[in-house]
């Protein structure tokens, strides 16, 4: 009876856990950046009236938001593999989470776009700005300001979703923990340790996001 916690093995695994954390964080950041860059035009297309742009945008958003993230990762890794497109686990996770982020963020941005007075766009165009410039410099900075909290949530949510990569052999935080607990049978120790590590990563992301907050870190 009773379970004696032995964290010594976790300390021994620290170098691997740290590099796993680096994999988790860098995948989260990369897929968030790509997700946001894709979400902006998706949101504009989904909110617009041009059916040739609206239909694929809506399809993307629906697919990304209404299928499990794990299925999206499998689709990239095994699904594309089945048609002869092979990629390492990190690439599959990066593509899948970027796809997922783009869908969720597009829906967040679409709501934000509705909150911007159409006259802001009109005034931008009247100064000679192209539509792309008007979105880039006038509309989206305001959308981002209004959706900042939802975007931060999505960032953390997608960082946690990278843990699903362990199921296709990604050596991220979860992958390292799974590997070590199988070899050492110290299941609780490793999963407790990475739970703490995920919290730290989430806090790190929130801290970083403060510097992107419109108006600066103290706003």
């Amino acid at each position, binding site marked *: 009876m009773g379970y004696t916690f032995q964290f010594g093995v976790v300390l021994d695994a620290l170098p691997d856990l740290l590099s796993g954390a680096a994999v988790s964080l860098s995948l989260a950041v990369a897929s968030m950046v790509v997700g946001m860059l894709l979400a902006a035009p998706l949101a504009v297309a989904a909110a617009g009236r041009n059916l040739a742009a609206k239909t694929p945008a809506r399809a993307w958003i629906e697919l990304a938001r209404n299928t499990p993230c794990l299925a999206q990762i499998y689709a990239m890794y095994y699904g594309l593999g089945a048609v002869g497109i092979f990629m390492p686990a990190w690439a599959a996770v990066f593509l899948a989470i970027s796809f997922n982020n783009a869908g969720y963020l597009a829906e967040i941005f679409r709501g934000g776009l509705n909150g911007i007075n159409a006259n802001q766009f009109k*005034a931008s165009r009247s100064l*000679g700005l192209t539509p792309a410039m008007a979105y880039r410099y006038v509309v989206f900075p305001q959308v981002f300001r209004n959706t900042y909290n939802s975007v931060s949530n999505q960032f953390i949510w997608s960082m946690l979703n990278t843990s699903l990569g362990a199921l296709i052999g990604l050596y991220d935080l979860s992958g390292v923990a799974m590997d070590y607990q199988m070899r050492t049978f110290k299941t609780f120790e490793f999963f407790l340790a990475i739970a703490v590590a995920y919290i730290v990563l989430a806090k790190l992301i929130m801290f970083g996001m403060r510097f992107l907050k419109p108006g600066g870190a103290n706003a």
Partner: protein
Amino acid sequence: MISIQNVHKSFGQLEVLKGIDLTIERGEVVTMIGPSGSGKSTLLQCINGLETINSGEIHVDGTSVFAPDTDLNKLRQKLGIVFQSYNAFPHMTVQRNVTLALRKVLRLPRAEADEIARRQLDRVGLLAKADVYPGALSGGQQQRLGIARALAMSPNYMLFDEVTSALDPQLVGEVLATMRDLSSEGMTMIAVTHEMKFAREVADRVVFFDKGVIAESGNPEEVFLSPKSPRLKEFLSHSQF
């Protein structure tokens, strides 16, 4: 010169412009008056292509606004417009509101754009507010920012779309004073306005819109003191000038 020929425009079933002909020469100040919904604001926004037309022609300095090969972004640099809703960009300081188009459209270096912005802000009496955000400005100040932002692009024409309609009465004066200054400097202006006193004082020519047509036009004395059409007589009987 802005030349407007037989312009028709409909919103769905509703025809708001029913064959407008109007020519505005460089240096001229034209004020447009008339009841709400008579089409004056719509026409103004057609001149720089923010609204489309169903038929007719609009030329600005010889360039057809609605020709497929016209670069509207380039054409709009000639046409400053100030709106009824202030439309300041709330996430940028007052100065950046003015430099945005200078930097991104005209691609001027920062120092040059800043210098132009500060000169224009000084011109409308807002230099002291250069570094604040528009949210901290009164309606009148925001409207003067709109004027400075448009002037910074060195337009040949300034279009004013009921710029005082959303203002508290005590703030109307400062905006009208800025517009008077502009007209005395020789700026070509087209102003849609409900300020009859202003429309009469500042204009070389007054155009009266009614139900989508120009019902009457002429110099201010003719239009205000000896109106010919019954509709203009009735309209003026409700106004003070």
